[in-house]
C-alpha cells in the first residue's frame, strides 16, 4: 500500500494543567474508516481539532500523504481536502441552511448552485434537508444533518466526524453509514468519533482508543465486541440497567388538547397534543427530530408560555402561561437539548451556571454566597463524574460529554418533582450514560415524574415505562414499552397510527 493519507506522531496538547493529548500517534490509510474511542474528556475532539488546524498542538508532527504538512488553520486543512463536522455546531442562526454552507465554500460558487448542491447531496444520501430554512428553527438533529451535508459538499479526502450520530435516529444513522461506506470506497479516509459502540463495530476498519489523552489501545473492531471495546475504554463493562416495575402514583404533568401555531412559517405547529406523566413513571417520546419536539419541550418548560393556561397542568394547576422560573419553583425541572447557549452560558463559570436553575446559594436581596455556590457546583462535579478543572472553569472549556453530565447533574441534584429531559445521554460515554440512566430510574423510584424526549430508540426502550411518538406536531397514543416493538414505533414515526397525520393506512392494534 501507499503512504497513509494521514499520520500523526507524538501529538501533545495542554490546556493549563490538563493534558488533553499526550504523545498521540496514529495512521489512517486511504479509504479507511478509523474510529477514535474514549471516555468523556479523553481528548478525542481536541485531537480532531489539531488535525483540522483549529487547535495548535504544543508538540508533534503531522504527515499528509507521507509528507510533513503544516496545518495552521482550518483554511489550510480545507485546502488539503479535510472536512470536519464539529461536535458543537458552527452554524449562524440567522442565516439559512444554504447560506451557512455557502460561507464555507470558495467564492466562485453561486448561492443557487449551493442550493442545488445541497438538494442533490441530501437526496443522494437520503438526508432530509430544506436549504431555504433559517438555521434557528432547526433542531439539533437537523443541524447535524446540515453539518454533514456541508462536509460532504466539499468532496473531502479526509472526513472527520465528531459524534455525528449523537442525535440521529437509528434509521438516519443507518443511511449515514451507507453514505460513509460509499465515500470510503471512493478512497476518502474517515475519522469517526462515537460513543455508540455498536456503530463502531458495524462501520469501522480500525480503532484507536484514548484514555486521559494517551493512546491505550488500537485494534481491529471487526474482531471485537461492544463488551471488549468498553473494557478497553473505561476498564469495565457498563453495568446493566436495573429496574423494577413502575410504582405509578398520582398524575403530575399533563397536556390536554395542546395546540400551538408555529413560531414562523418554518416552525412546526403542535396540534391537539395530549399527554399524561404520573409520579413514579418514565414516559418517553420518540420521533425524528424536527417533528415538533422542540416546540413541545418549550411549551412544557415554560420557555414558550403561549399555550392556553389549562392546556398544560402541573399537579392539577393550570401552568400554560407561566414562565420557566415559575414552573421550576413548582418542582418542574428541564434539561434542554442544546448544552451551550441554552443549558449553560458558555462564557460563565460552572459555578455561575448553577444560578440558571438553582437558587440555594442565594441570600437576602439575591446576594450570592460564593462559597456556598462553589460548594454546590463542586458537589455536582463530584457526584456526576464531571471532568473539569473545578467550579471556576468556564462552561465552554468542558468536553461535550462532561458538560452534558454537568447540566443533567445540576437538574437531578435539585430533586425535582417533575423532570422533562431531552437527549439525556447525548455525547456521554457508555459508562457515564449507564450511570445517568440509573440515576433517572432512581429518581423515578423516588416518586418523580420523568418525561424523556430522545431520538435514541434503544435508550427509550430501556428507560421508559410508556412510549409516545411525535410526528408532524401530533402525538401518538401511548403504548407500554414492553408491548411495543421497534417496527411499530418506526411506523408511528411516519405518522402511521390510527388517526395519525400519516393516516394513509389506518393501522389497527397496539394503541391503547
Amino acid at each position, binding site marked *: 500500500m501507499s503512504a497513509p493519507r494521514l499520520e500523526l506522531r507524538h501529538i501533545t496538547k495542554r490546556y493549563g494543567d490538563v493534558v488533553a493529548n499526550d504523545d498521540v500517534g496514529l495512521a489512517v490509510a486511504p479509504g479507511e474508516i478509523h474510529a477514535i474511542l474514549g471516555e468523556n474528556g479523553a481528548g478525542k475532539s481536541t485531537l480532531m481539532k489539531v488535525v483540522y488546524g483549529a487547535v495548535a498542538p504544543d508538540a508533534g508532527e503531522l504527515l499528509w500523504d507521507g509528507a510533513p504538512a503544516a496545518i495552521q488553520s482550518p*483554511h489550510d486543512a480545507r485546502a488539503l481536502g479535510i472536512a470536519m463536522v464539529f461536535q458543537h455546531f458552527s452554524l449562524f442562526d440567522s442565516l439559512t441552511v444554504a447560506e451557512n454552507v455557502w460561507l464555507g465554500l470558495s467564492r*466562485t460558487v453561486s448561492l443557487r448552485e449551493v442550493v442545488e448542491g445541497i438538494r442533490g447531496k441530501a437526496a443522494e444520501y437520503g438526508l432530509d434537508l430544506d436549504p431555504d430554512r433559517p438555521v434557528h428553527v432547526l433542531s439539533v438533529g437537523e443541524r447535524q444533518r446540515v453539518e454533514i451535508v456541508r462536509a460532504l459538499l466539499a468532496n473531502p479526502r479526509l472526513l472527520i466526524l465528531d459524534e455525528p450520530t449523537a442525535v440521529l435516529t437509528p434509521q438516519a444513522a443507518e443511511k449515514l453509514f451507507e453514505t460513509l461506506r460509499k465515500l470510503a470506497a471512493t478512497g476518502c479516509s474517515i475519522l469517526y468519533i462515537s460513543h455508540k459502540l455498536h456503530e463502531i463495530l458495524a462501520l469501522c476498519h480500525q480503532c484507536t482508543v484514548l484514555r486521559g489523552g494517551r493512546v491505550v489501545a488500537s485494534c481491529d473492531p471487526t474482531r471485537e465486541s461492544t463488551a471488549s471495546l468498553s473494557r478497553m475504554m473505561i476498564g469495565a463493562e457498563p453495568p446493566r440497567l436495573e429496574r423494577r416495575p413502575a410504582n405509578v402514583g398520582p398524575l403530575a404533568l399533563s397536556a390536554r388538547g395542546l395546540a400551538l401555531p408555529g413560531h414562523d412559517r418554518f416552525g412546526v405547529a403542535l396540534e391537539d397534543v395530549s399527554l399524561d406523566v404520573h409520579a413514579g413513571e418514565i414516559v418517553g417520546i420518540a420521533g425524528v427530530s424536527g417533528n415538533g419536539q422542540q416546540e413541545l419541550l418549550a411549551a412544557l418548560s415554560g420557555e414558550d408560555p403561549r399555550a392556553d393556561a389549562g392546556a398544560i397542568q402541573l399537579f392539577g394547576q393550570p401552568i400554560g402561561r407561566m414562565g420557566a422560573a415559575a414552573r421550576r419553583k413548582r418542582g418542574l425541572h428541564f434539561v434542554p437539548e442544546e448544552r451551550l447557549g441554552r443549558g*449553560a452560558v458558555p462564557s460563565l463559570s460552572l459555578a455561575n451556571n448553577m444560578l440558571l436553575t438553582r437558587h440555594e446559594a442565594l441570600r437576602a436581596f439575591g446576594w450570592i454566597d460564593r462559597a456556598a455556590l462553589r460548594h454546590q457546583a463542586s458537589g455536582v462535579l463530584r457526584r456526576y463524574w464531571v471532568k473539569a478543572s473545578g467550579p471556576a472553569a468556564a462552561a465552554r472549556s468542558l468536553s461535550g460529554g462532561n458538560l452534558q453530565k454537568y447540566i443533567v447533574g445540576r437538574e437531578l441534584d435539585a430533586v425535582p418533582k417533575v423532570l422533562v429531559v431531552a437527549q439525556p445521554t447525548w455525547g456521554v460515554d457508555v459508562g457515564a450514560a449507564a450511570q445517568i440512566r440509573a440515576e433517572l430510574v432512581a429518581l423515578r423510584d423516588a416518586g418523580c415524574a420523568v418525561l424523556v424526549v430522545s431520538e435514541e430508540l434503544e435508550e427509550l426502550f430501556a428507560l421508559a415505562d410508556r412510549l409516545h411518538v411525535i410526528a408532524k406536531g401530533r402525538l401518538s397514543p401511548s403504548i407500554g414499552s414492553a408491548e411495543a416493538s421497534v417496527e411499530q414505533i418506526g411506523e408511528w414515526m411516519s405518522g402511521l397510527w390510527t388517526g395519525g397525520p400519516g393516516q394513509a393506512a389506518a393501522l389497527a392494534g397496539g394503541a391503547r
Partner: protein
Amino acid sequence: MIRLDVRQVPSLRMSVLSPIIALAVTVAAGGVLFLALGKDPVRVLSMFLVEPFNGVRALTELGLKCTPLILCALGLGLCFRSNVWNIGAEGQFLMGAIAGGGLALWVTNASAALSPWVFFPLVVVAGAAGGAAWAAIVALLRDRFNANEILVSLMLVYVADLFLSWLVFGPWKDPLGFNFPQTVQFAAATEIPRFVRGMRLHWGFAFALVAAVLMWLFMFRTHRGIQLQIGGPAPAAARYAGFSSRAAIWTTLLISGALAGIAGAFEVTGPMGQLTPHVASGYGFTAIIVAFVGRLHPLGAVLGSVVLSAFVIGGQLAQSRVGLPASVSGVFQGMLLLALLGCDTLIHHRPRLARWTWRAAP
C-alpha cells in the same frame, strides 16, 4: 494579505494589551493628524497626555470631568452587557440636570436655610428621578411597542435639550438677567460640597467612585446582576432559566437613566451653579466611548473616564493655546474608539500573513 484565524481560547494577554495598543495607535495617528494640520505634534500630544495630569489643580479638574463620565458609563456598561442599546445618556443627563436644577432653583427662591449636606442627598434623588423618568419612556416604548431603543433614546436627547431651552428662555429665566437665557445663580446652600476650598472638585466624585464599587458588586455578586448579563450573550439560556427580558429592559434603563440623571444634577449644582441652554456638553455621548474603553466593566469605567477626560481637557487646551479646532478633539476620541474596537479583534482572532488564494469550486 493578513488573514484572521479564530482563536480557540480568547487570548488573555491580548485582552490586557488591546487597550494599550489602541492607545498607542491613537497617539501615533493623532500625531500625524496634528502634523498635517501644521501644529507641533509633540506639543499638542503633551496637551492631551501630560498636562491634564500635571499638578494638583490639573488633577482635580480631571476628577471633575471624570465624575459625570463615570456615572454615565456605569449605567451604559450595564445596559450594553444586557443587550439594551441605550445611547441617549445625554438626554437622561439633561433631565437630571433639569430636575436637580429645578430643586436648587426652588430652594434659592424660597431662601430656605439649608445645609449643603442636607441638600446633597436631595439633589441626588431629584437627578435620579429626572434621569430615570426619561429612560422609562424608552423602556416603555420598547416593552409595549417593541420600539427600537437606539432610535428612541437618541431622539429623546433632542427633546430634552429643547425642553431645557424652553425653560431657560421662558418660565425659569432670571428676571434680572438682562434677558439672557439662564436661571438665577443658585444659592450657596445648593452647592455640592467641595473637597477643598478654591478647587472645583466636589464630593460627587467620591459618590461616583462608590457607585462604581456598588455597581461592581451588583453585577458580579448578585443574582439579578448575573441575570441581566445573560440576556446579551445567551438569550436562549436566559429564556431557559426564566429570566425575564422585560425586567432586564426596565432594570437596566432605569438604573442607567438614574445614574446619568445624577451626573446631570451634579453638573448644574456643582461647577455650573445655574441652568443655561449649554448644559449639554456631550458627557452622555463620550460616556459610550468610556464604557467600551473600560470593557463594560464598572472599574474599567473609572479608568476609561480618566483617559477620555484627559482627551477632553487636552482638546480644550489645544483649542485655546494653538487654535486646534474643537472638532479635532472629537476626531481624536473617535479614533481611540475605532482603534480599540479594531484591537479587540485580536482577542478572539490570530492575525497572520497569508497568500490570497482563489480556488475553484470542487
